[in-house]
């Protein structure tokens, strides 16, 4: 048995401020106050749904039956303002229909565009809560974005201040400088070491292979270091060893020769084999007493250059004649 209810138009409007009540011919019997504010023509004498609304993709509303098809789920858009779109549910009412419309997901934009207020929505409608959440989400995102910007800034600073070379884990230039500052002795050896044929690995097998080689070189250097020694990577394939306590050339040269020997062993990389070597220049601090560290670096450099000219794959001790070359 069908039960019938008698509902005042005003009560209907409070329950559904975006309703549309239609007669059998599609004439507008009643339009909710919010909907009427958005589409004032709904209040005109003899307003008809088909004149004011189109179905999705602009299809015309022929008869009321078109709205009730598909279990009454409708998408309506304003004919005058096609960007104003609604989602709704239509149910039969007498020979006509009653449709309750909503903005759907476009509500956030619609509220701003049409200056809607809380009074435009029924208290049971969660639109205001949705808007609250949208705004809370936006505020939280802004905070997060600002926080990310701060953290990104921190990361850049931290990298600048880092003492370690990110690829190899050896000290970087800055870390080396600090190790020199912290030297407790005036007896030390400074070694400048360059890889031989590193460019061929990089060019032939790619940068990943080059990086792999650098990591292996770093491992060898770290293994050959004694407590108190410092190994640093100061450029692409340039390394520096700082060996405190070295007073004699021969034992220092023997240590470097052993490193170069190990560097010359083939380094497997996947199915390929990388073959590199090393050249080194060595200077003992006692060879140039009172000299600034920059002078010692220049000496080690000169010795490295001499080692390369002498055919690579060797370590040479700095001698004054090398400087002029």
């Amino acid at each position, binding site marked *: 048995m069908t039960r019938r209810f008698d509902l005042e138009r005003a009560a209907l409007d409070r329950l559904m401020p975006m309703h549309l009540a239609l007669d059998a011919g599609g004439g507008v019997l009643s339009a909710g106050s919010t909907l009427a504010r958005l589409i004032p023509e709904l209040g005109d004498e003899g307003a008809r749904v088909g004149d004011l609304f189109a179905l999705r993709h602009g299809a015309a509303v022929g008869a009321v039956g078109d709205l009730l098809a598909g279990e009454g789920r409708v998408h309506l858009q304003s004919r005058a303002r096609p960007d104003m779109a609604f989602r709704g549910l239509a149910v039969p009412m007498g020979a006509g229909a009653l449709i309750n419309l909503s903005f759907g997901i476009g509500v956030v934009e619609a509220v701003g565009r049409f200056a809607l207020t809380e009074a435009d929505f029924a208290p049971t409608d969660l639109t205001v809560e949705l808007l609250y959440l949208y705004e*809370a989400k936006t505020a939280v995102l802004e905070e997060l974005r600002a926080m990310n910007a*701060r953290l990104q800034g921190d990361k850049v600073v931290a990298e600048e201040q880092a003492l370690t070379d990110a690829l190899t884990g050896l000290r970087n230039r800055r870390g080396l400088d600090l190790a020199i500052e912290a030297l407790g002795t005036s007896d030390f050896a400074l070694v400048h070491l360059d890889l031989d044929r590193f460019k061929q690995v990089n060019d032939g097998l790619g940068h990943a292979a080059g990086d792999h080689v650098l990591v292996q070189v770093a491992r060898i250097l770290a293994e050959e270091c004694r407590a108190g020694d410092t190994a640093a990577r100061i450029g692409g394939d340039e390394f520096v060893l700082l060996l405190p306590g070295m007073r004699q050339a021969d034992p220092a040269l023997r240590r470097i020769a052993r490193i170069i020997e190990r560097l010359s062993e083939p380094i497997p990389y996947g199915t390929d084999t990388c073959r590199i070597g090393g050249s080194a220049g060595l200077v003992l601090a006692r060879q140039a007493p009172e000299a600034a560290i920059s002078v010692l670096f220049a000496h080690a450099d000169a010795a490295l250059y001499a080692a390369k000219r002498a055919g690579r794959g060797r370590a040479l001790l700095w001698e004054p004649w090398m400087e002029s070359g």
Partner: protein
Amino acid sequence: MNGLINRAIQCFLRDGWGAATWLDAARAAGVPARGFEPMLTYPPEVTERLLQVAADRLTRDRDCLLEDLGTYLVSHPSRAAVRRLLRFGGTDFPDFLQSLEDLPARARLALPDLVLPPLRVMALGEQRFVLQIGAGFPGAGAVARGLLRAMADDYGALALLEAGPEGAGGAAEVMIRLLDPAHAEGRSFTLGARE
């Protein structure tokens, strides 16, 4: 303590008394000078220490300072988002008062980490209300007084606020007497547009 609350105190000190005052208080309280990150969590002692140091440095009563913090949260332009989110609570001040009970749930909806003390609003008679604040935040009563005073202004309502009895752990009551719900124009609030 959620970093958002600590950061609000940080901005309150900075906007109210200048960057030097904030830095000075941060140093004295052993807080990183660059401040708090809003989405991280900090131990509650940090907040307590910062508030104590700030009150000492500014020679203000701690409750006074917290009341001003509450007002600042609603009325300062740099906190516009807080004011707007609170205004979602109701169309007028009495409506807003009733919505305060939902505030902790609303806050959690936005930020699951943000735990506020339980709130209860009771009508005591004609235009008289009491806000009961549960334990958890020592000083919450003072913050609520400042915040409600500013919200009354925002709605254009004339209200009298008084501190009620305080319980353990920051539990507090605020007595509210609504003299005129539509005393002044109030600040505009639209649902959509961000002012």
